[in-house]
Each structure stands twice: as structure tokens, then as C-alpha cells.
């Protein structure tokens, strides 16, 4: 168990190196640099590049970069918020992204799991058809399209009912982030609904459920004690996958709703060739995905003690 744990944590290192290598290679292929300007003489541009260490060979920049990252020195933003440390910028904006992610994941758990259970318990009745139909509908719509349709709805209801729901906000509060967060959570919630239903149905067909019924347990007891617990395993996997997906999905939702989170800044950093911001944010996103996968794998052990870690393959 501990050996497996250590091996999984060590796996983060090659992933990190791979991701930053890919990112920095691509970044240097981007045409232009943050300091390309007609107003600066070539000599001055050269001096600025030297000051930021951008004149060194790419491999050397990369090695320096990795060492600095490990030391916690994430460099300074090169264009957007010129001269400010990347870590400060991220610290300022990650809060919005996290709030959106928390609202989204809560939506997934609060909506997705119960609807799946309700559908399974009412198998082949109208509640089941309703839940599966609605989830298939929302599953099929890309989240940015759903976001846009929501925006249209907000605008329409503002005009029609004289509401004052704000479309965008430069300094959003938790309440402002509710709608984007729910929109972001709806698609993964539909996946979880379908999965919970399937998993629950499978468990309900097992022999031990019949046994529990035969020995006289109440239906409620059977569902909460036996069925629910055993149907959770695949759900946890998907929740983990979807959380990684939410991190990336937040890029799209933050763009649609103009939320000043990390995703929003990443897109504008790419436009302005802000090397250090791009490198850090993509690496962070990849790290989130890897760490969440690790946590999910370890969670299995708590939910299902039968799983032996040593036999599982990495990845």
C-alpha cells in the first residue's frame, strides 16, 4: 500500500516534466515574443530578452525554469500584468476558478447521484424515462453552448420581466458565480446520473440484495446499507475524471461568462505570448488532473477494501 502510494506520487514527476516540456516547446514556436514592437530598437529588444533570460538556448531556459518552479519561484508575468510575480497573479484569480469548480462539483453530486438513484429505483417507469431523457439531453450539449443559451435566457428574462441579473462582472461574488458554476456542472451531472442509474441497477440485480430481502430487511435498509455503498465505486471514478474535466471546462465557462479566473487568463495569456503564465497555468491544470486521479485511486481503497493496490498498474 505505502509502496504503491509512493510510486503513484513519483509518477507525478515524469508527467510534470513531460507536460512542461511539451508546453515550453510549443511556446517557443509561437510567432513573435512578448516584446516584439516597432517602437523598440532591435538592440533594446535584445537587452530586455537578456534581462528575462529569454536569449539563452531553449533547453537552458527549460532547465532553469524547472529548477525555479521546484523552488517555488514561478517567474514574473511578461506582458499582461507586466512585472508582477506569476504566483501572485494566480493567487488572485484562482479563487474564482475554485469557487466555480466547487459549485459545479456540488451540482454534480447534489443533482447527479440522487437522480440516478431515483431512476434506478423506478426502473422502466416514467420517472426513469424522464431522468434518462433529461440527462441524455444535457449530456449532448457542449457546455459553452449551454452557457450561451443560458446567457440568452438571462438577457431575455431581463428584458421581459425587468430582472437585473448581471451577465458579467469584473469582481464577481459567490452569488454571481452560481449560474456559471451550475452550467458547468450540468453536463458532468448528466453523466453521473446515467452512471449511478446503471451501477445501481446492476447492484440491485445481485444475489446479496435478494438475500438481504429474504432475511427480512426493509427496502430502505437494503438500499442504503447494501445497494448504495456497492454502486458507489464506478461513480467515484467518474467523479474524479469529471473533476479533471471541470478544471478544463472552467476555461470555456470562464470565457463565456467573462469570469476573471485562471482559465480566462490562460486564454488571454496565449494571445499575448505571456510565456511564464502559459507554462505555469498549463502545468497547474495538468497537475490537478494527475493529483485528482491519484486521490480517486486511493479512495477506492476506502470504499472497497478488496482492491489491492500492489497489483494495480500505474496509469
Amino acid at each position, binding site marked *: 500500500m505505502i509502496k504503491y502510494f509512493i510510486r503513484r506520487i513519483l509518477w507525478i514527476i*515524469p*508527467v510534470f516534466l*513531460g*507536460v512542461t516540456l*511539451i*508546453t515550453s516547446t*510549443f*511556446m517557443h*514556436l*509561437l*510567432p513573435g515574443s512578448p516584446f516584439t514592437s516597432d517602437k523598440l530598437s532591435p538592440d533594446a529588444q535584445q537587452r530586455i530578452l537578456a534581462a528575462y533570460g529569454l536569449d539563452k538556448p531553449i533547453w537552458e531556459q527549460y532547465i532553469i525554469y524547472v529548477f525555479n518552479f521546484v523552488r517555488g519561484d514561478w517567474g514574473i508575468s511578461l506582458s499582461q500584468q507586466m512585472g508582477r510575480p506569476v504566483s501572485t497573479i494566480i493567487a488572485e484569480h484562482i479563487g474564482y476558478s475554485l469557487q466555480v469548480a466547487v459549485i459545479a462539483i456540488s451540482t454534480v453530486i447534489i443533482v447527479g447521484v440522487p437522480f440516478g438513484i431515483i431512476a434506478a429505483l423506478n*426502473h*422502466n417507469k416514467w420517472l426513469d424515462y424522464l431522468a434518462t431523457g433529461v440527462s*441524455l*439531453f444535457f*449530456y*449532448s*450539449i*457542449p457546455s*459553452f*453552448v*449551454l452557457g*450561451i*443559451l443560458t446567457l*440568452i435566457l438571462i*438577457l*431575455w428574462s431581463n428584458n421581459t420581466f425587468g430582472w437585473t441579473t448581471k451577465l458579467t462582472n469584473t469582481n464577481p461574488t459567490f452569488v454571481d458565480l452560481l449560474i456559471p458554476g451550475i452550467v458547468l456542472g450540468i453536463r458532468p451531472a448528466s453523466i453521473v446520473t*446515467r*452512471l449511478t*442509474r*446503471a451501477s445501481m*441497477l*446492476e447492484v*440491485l*440485480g445481485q444475489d446479496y440484495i435478494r438475500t438481504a430481502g429474504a432475511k427480512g430487511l426493509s427496502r430502505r435498509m437494503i438500499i442504503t446499507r447494501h445497494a448504495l455503498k456497492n454502486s458507489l465505486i464506478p461513480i467515484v471514478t467518474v467523479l474524479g475524471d469529471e473533476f*479533471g474535466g471541470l*478544471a*478544463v471546462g472552467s*476555461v*470555456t465557462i470562464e*470565457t*463565456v461568462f467573462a469570469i476573471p479566473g485562471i482559465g480566462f487568463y*490562460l*486564454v488571454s495569456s*496565449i*494571445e499575448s505570448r505571456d510565456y511564464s503564465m*502559459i507554462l505555469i497555468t*498549463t502545468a497547474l*491544470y*495538468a497537475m490537478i*488532473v*494527475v493529483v485528482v*486521479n491519484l486521490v480517486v485511486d486511493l479512495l477506492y481503497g476506502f470504499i472497497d477494501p478488496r482492491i489491492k493496490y500492489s497489483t494495480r498498474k500505474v*496509469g
Partner: protein
Amino acid sequence: MAEVKTEVEEQPTPDAAAIAAQTLGAPKSAKPSSLWRDARRRFVKNKLAIAGVVIMLIIIIPVIGADVFQRYDPTLSQYDRSPGAPKLYEQNYQPASEKFWFGTDGQNRDLWARMLHGGRVSLLVGVVVQAMVLGLGVPLGLISGFFGGKVDTFIMFIVNIFYAFPSILAGLLFLSAFGSSIMWVLIAVGIGLWPPMARLIRGQVLSLREKEFVEAARAIGVKNSKIMFRHIFPNTLGPIIVSVSFGVPQAIQIEAFFGFIGVSVPPPATSWGQLVNEGFKAFQSNPITILLIPALAIALTCMSLNFIGDGLRDAFDPKTKNK
């Protein structure tokens, strides 16, 4: 679940059917039901999937025949320059009318024609990207799963790094680095979609290569390459078809997102995502159709394709029928 069981029992496996036919002396012309025939029968019975096929046909036919169905050139502004007509800028963003079915955009170009041609790009991306994913993911998955050992470790190492890399970000970097021609758009969309395919195939191969028929083939001295392509590969086709049918709408979605943030195919070409982008910038003070139509087109296409994918999955794997 009971429903599923009865259905499975009704359908004897090919072997069982063949044995039954031999022992009972049934006429040889009675065809044993094959996986494909069963799948087709189950698919046709699925109402949602058939609805998906019908909607997709309604969308695909005008999009493929865009040159026939368009009423104006999608790249030309349709200004009325006759004396007494409104000023040119006042002619932009016309609402839907007899003349312009979907209205016009900010340069007074016919939205109907632009939707048709944009649909070409969107659907093309969906199909071509899946071809690329197959071309890369299937061989790598086959080799990785079949040979195991160091080859497997090496291939899976690369696959897992790409798997951890947020695909949309990879695509974004890619497009900003190489500029957005249709080829780079295809690669940028595909870059995040091949690792899951490789992993799927590898998993399939891992379980298939332990099966008796592979052992039998090995025992009579069949070559590795032949076992791989003649015996293992055909058995992975079901999951591949299902994965591709879900992959097409996924690719369309990713391209639409790239279009939406403005890094897809260069103008005057367009895609549904880019039309959403143009509509998004203008919808607050102009006819809402400019945003609603492309957004709905993406949603409807993805929905129909997902219905089809759902139907195919049920058709190829009756065990998951109710999932």
C-alpha cells in the same frame, strides 16, 4: 435487468447455433445469427437512435450539397445599392426574411449560406479527426497490448503524458504556435482524443490475447502479425465503432470551442463555432438568431450523434442495454 436476460437467452451464440443446427439436422441454409446482424436488429429498434439518424441526414444533406442549397455566396456582402435603399451599415444584421432565411451577419452576408459552409468545416473536423484518432490510437493500442513488456511501458508512458495534458489547452497552444489552417485545426482537435482510444484498444487486447482462440491460433503456429490483425483486431471493432460514434460529436464540440474563442479556420472560411463567436459579440443589440442558430446547430448535431452513439453501444453490447 430481467428484460436483458431474456433477450440474451433468446439469442444463442453463433457457436451454439451452429452446434444446434448440426445436431438437430436443421437445413444448412438457416443462417446463424451473427454479432453484426444482432447489432443491426437492436439498433433499428432503438427509436432515439433512428431519430438521431434522421436528424443527421436532414443536417448532412444540405451541408454536403452546400453549393446547391446556398442562395447567395457565403463570402460576399449582399448590399442593396439601388438609390433610395437604406445606408449600407443599416443593412447589416437583417432579421430572418423571405430573402435571407436566417438573416444576415455584420457584413450583411447570408447566414443560411454561411451556416451551410460552416457546417462543412464542423462536420469535416468531426469525421477526419476520428480517422486520425483511429490511425494513431488503434495501432499503438494493438502493439502495446499485444507485445506487453518494455514496448507497452514505453507506449503507455507517452500515452499517459498526453492523457494528463488538458487537451483543449494543448490544442490552443498548437493553434497559436502554427496558425490556424484547417490542417492544424484538425491536429489540434485530435491531439487530446487519441490517448483514450489507445488505452481502450490496449485494454481490449489485454483481455482478448488470453482467450482460447488466440491460444489455439498460437498453438498451430500462426504468426504474431496475423494473430493481431486477423484474430484480435476484428474483436475490438465493436468498442471501436462505439468509441468513434461518441468521438465525432466530441471533436465537433472541441472545434466549436476553438471557433468560439476565435482560433479556428481563417476567414473567409467559417465554422459553426466561429459563427457562434460572431453572434456572441453582436447578439445584445441585434436579432438573436445570429447567435441562436449556430448554437442550436451545434447542440442539435451533437445531440443526434450522441443518440446514434448510444444506440450503437446498446446494439453492440446488450449487457449495457439499460445503462
